[in-house]
Each structure stands twice: as structure tokens, then as C-alpha cells.
């Protein structure tokens, strides 16, 4: 079903690979033997109706949800299993943390720590997890907050920032950990229309500046079309169609895809 047009990196191995991943909540199967490969530096948009599994893909990759079967590979290594004696066993905490450090995520509801300033939000993890010195962590955080346009608000608390500003802090916070893959879970859906643009601009900037690999679940079709290298249309727990934006938006192969796009674009 998925014609994977993944462009492999020079080593030939995709950065992220889902191999027949099954995820269910009780009796409800949300991901049905999903195969997906994402190459380094690739920008992939995941679109589709709600409940089709696209957010679950991100959450499984961020180890927020366990998977029932199949394997997720990051940089060629399995995410939640360790190789041992020629087979795979469930990973221990240390291994999971090592793997998790390669992934960063920005949430729909921002999820900033309300009792910490923007700066403190951005230095907390680098200090304790990466073991950076205080000065180094602060310098890095300042630079990132400057980059997302909030250099003058580093000492504000989330409660004192607008939605768009909070989301930009969230992006800076995730970037401070220098992940290999950045996940964006409907990051503009909770924002007022007039601030969506500023957040999308930031995503565009960091995408080009840092040449990050990005997976974005989004309803912003215009942005997906203009910014992604590749778009995956999810339907019913599987990728129905997968190709460059020109194909998906201009000349989709499946009727379902076209139906979905018509409905979304009409609403916008």
C-alpha cells in the first residue's frame, strides 16, 4: 500500500524506520503493521483524518506509547528492544534513554513547565541530562530563544506569554537537546489563527538552518505543500498514499486522498 519513496542517506540506512508496527488500545487497532522509512534531513508531513494513526506514529517514536508488535528503528538500532544473543529483548532503562535522546517533540498544547521561566524551561534538560555546565546551557538556551524571536522574553513565565510565544519556547526547548529527529504534533492546532504564521515561520527557519529530520502531523495543508519533501496520507491505521507534495496535493492517486483534501481545503 505504501510506495515508499524514501531517499536513503549515504550509508543507505533510513534515519527512522517503522517495520510492521502494530499499536492497539485495547481492542482498537490504531496502527496496522505500519511500514515507514524516513531519511536523514527529510521533512515529512503526516496528514489524514483524526483517528487514522498519525499522532500515534509520533507518540510511539517518542516512546510515549508502547507498541504491540513490530520494531521501530532509529539510526539502524531498535528503539525499544536491545539486541542480545542474536535476538531482541525488551530494552532496559539506560538503553531506552540513550535512544530517546535522539528524538525531540513539540506538543499541540505546548506543555511548558508553568513554574519555570522560558529560559529555565530550556536549560532544565540540557543541565541534568546532557550534563552541560550552567553557563553553556544558558548560552545555548539564549541563542535558541533569540532565534525563535523571544530573546527579550527569556525571563517570562509561560502564564505571561501568548499561545504562539509559548509554542516557540517549546520549540526552542526541544531543540536545546540537539535531537536528530524533531516531531511536531499538530503544533498550530491550539493557536489563534493570527499567530499560526509566526510558529510556522520558526519551523521553516530551523528546518533550513539546522537541516533537521522532521516529522510533522499537521492540518496546515498550505505549509505542508510548500515546506515538506514528502507527504504521507494516513487512513485507518496505514499509509494510503506517500509521495512528494506535488503528487499528493496536485494529482493524488487514491480517491480517498482526494476526498480528504477536498474536505479540508473547503473548510480552510
Amino acid at each position, binding site marked *: 500500500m505504501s510506495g515508499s519513496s524514501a531517499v536513503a542517506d549515504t550509508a543507505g540506512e533510513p534515519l527512522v524506520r517503522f517495520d510492521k508496527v502494530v499499536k492497539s488500545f485495547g481492542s482498537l487497532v490504531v496502527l496496522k503493521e505500519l511500514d515507514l522509512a524516513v531519511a536523514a534531513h527529510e521533512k515529512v508531513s503526516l496528514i489524514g483524518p483524526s483517528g487514522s494513526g498519525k499522532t500515534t506514529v509520533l507518540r510511539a517514536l*517518542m*516512546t*510515549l506509547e508502547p507498541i504491540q508488535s513490530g520494531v521501530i528503528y532509529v539510526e539502524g538500532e531498535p528503539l525499544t528492544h536491545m539486541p542480545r544473543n542474536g535476538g531482541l529483548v525488551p530494552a532496559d532503562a539506560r538503553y531506552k*534513554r540513550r535512544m*530517546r*535522546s535522539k*528524538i*525531540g*517533540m513539540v*506538543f499541540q*498544547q505546548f*506543555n*511548558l*513547565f*508553568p*513554574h519555570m521561566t522560558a529560559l529555565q524551561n530550556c536549560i*532544565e*534538560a540540557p543541565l*541534568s*541530562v546532557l550534563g552541560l555546565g550552567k553557563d553553556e546551557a544558558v548560552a545555548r538556551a539564549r541563542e535558541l530563544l533569540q532565534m525563535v524571536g523571544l530573546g527579550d522574553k527569556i525571563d517570562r*513565565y*509561560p*502564564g*505571561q506569554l501568548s499561545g504562539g510565544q509559548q509554542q516557540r519556547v517549546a520549540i526552542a*526547548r*526541544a531543540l536545546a*537537546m540537539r535531537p536528530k529527529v524533531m516531531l511536531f504534533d499538530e503544533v498550530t492546532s491550539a493557536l489563534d489563527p493570527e499567530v499560526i504564521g509566526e510558529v510556522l515561520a520558526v519551523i521553516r527557519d530551523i528546518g533550513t538552518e539546522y537541516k533537521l529530520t522532521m516529522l510533522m502531523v499537521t492540518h496546515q495543508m498550505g505549509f505542508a505543500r510548500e515546506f515538506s519533501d514528502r507527504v504521507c496520507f494516513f487512513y485507518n491505521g496505514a499509509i494510503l498514499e506517500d509521495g512528494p507534495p506535488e503528487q499528493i496535493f496536485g494529482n493524488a492517486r487514491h480517491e480517498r486522498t482526494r476526498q480528504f483534501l477536498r474536505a479540508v481545503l473547503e473548510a480552510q
Partner: protein
Amino acid sequence: MKGPPSKAFFVGYFILVLLFGAGFTWAMGAGRFLPVLGQGVVVTVEITLAGACLALFMAFLAALTRLYAPWPLRWLATGYIEIFRGTSALVQLFWLYFVLPQFGIELSAMTVAILGLGLHVGAYGAEIVRGTVAAVPKAQWEAATALNLGGLRTVRRIIMPQALTAMIPPWGNLMIELLKLTSLVSLITLADLTFRAQQLNLATFRTTEIFTLVLLCYLALSLLMTLGIRLIADHLHARYGRPS
């Protein structure tokens, strides 16, 4: 007049109580009772403070045990909470005061008061701690996971500060309940405000004046505490914003 009374109301009420108390004392010539009642107030405040310390300690101990300890200890913590919440404060005080001596353990009235009230209020406090920790949104845990913060660090730096902020209003109300509970110690012959009132009444029979003043004292103290809680809670909300 919707919503809980405003801070202004409590300030006004407090001032009114002080003025009325002063005027009443002067008008009724009750000034000579103030020193004795004052001694009672001191004891009341002492028991409240000491009881509060014990309650805080027990509450965190019991709540954290229930959340993170192995099951035999968890069972013990639950037993403590259920027993001390499920029985009367007065029954608990009487038990400590009258029954323990039958087993050879004679505690002073003050020890019984602090121990009994501290354990009683601590059991209620444990539920506050547990409730506020559980009420921290799951999304905060997920954000911490996304940043690869370890479990202990997440609890210490992310979860507990938020729980502590949310805990302050219910804990404040619990402390006011504790203040009111201290009046029970008069029934185990401890010389708190209520006890002094009865003492004075027996001595002078100026019943109305004495008991009015006593009620005004308690009212003033609880209004003061209510104001204090409001100020702290409002300050924290101003700084951190309402939880989303």
C-alpha cells in the same frame, strides 16, 4: 453576590471584629479578662503550630509511601489514613489521654494534644498531597519524557513544584480546621482559649462577655489565616498563571 467573598470582605470583616472586640471590651469593662484569655490564645497558637508541623510531616510521609513504597508499607499508610480520617478527633484525643495510661503510657496533655491533632489532620493532609500530585497533568510527564528527563528528576523538578503550588489553598483551609480543632483540648484539661474561658466563667460569672470575646478571638484568627492563604495563592497565580 457571586463567588467566594473577596479579599476586601475579609479585610473589612477582620477590622470590624477587632474594632467591635475592642469596643465591647471597653464598654463591658472586660479588660481584666484579656491577660488570662491571652494566655489561652498563646497555648492555642502553640498547639496549632506544633500540630501543623506534625501534620505536614505525616501527610507527606503517608502520601509518598502510598505512591512509591513497597506494598506492606503502602498498606500501613492506607491504614493510618483511613483510621485517623474515619474516627472523631475527640475520640482520638480521649483514647490517647485515657486509654494509653492503662497500658502504662502516660503522656502529658500537651503531648496528647499535639500528637492526636497532628495525626488526625495529617491523615486529611495526605489526601491533599496525593490528590494534587495526581492532578498534575499527564502532559507534563510527557513533556519531561520528550526531554529525556529521568523519573526522579521529573518528580523533583517538574511535578512536585506544581503539586506544591496547587496544595496551598486546601492546606490553608485544613490549617484553619486545625485551629478550630484545638478547642477540643480543653476537654482534656489543657489550658487553651476555650479552657481559660470556662475557668474565667466559673470564677467571675461574666458569662456573656467572656464567651463573646472567645468567639471573637477565634473569628479574628481564622479571618487572618484566610487572608494569608488568599494572598499567597493570588501571588502564586499572578506569577505562574492559572493551570491550563
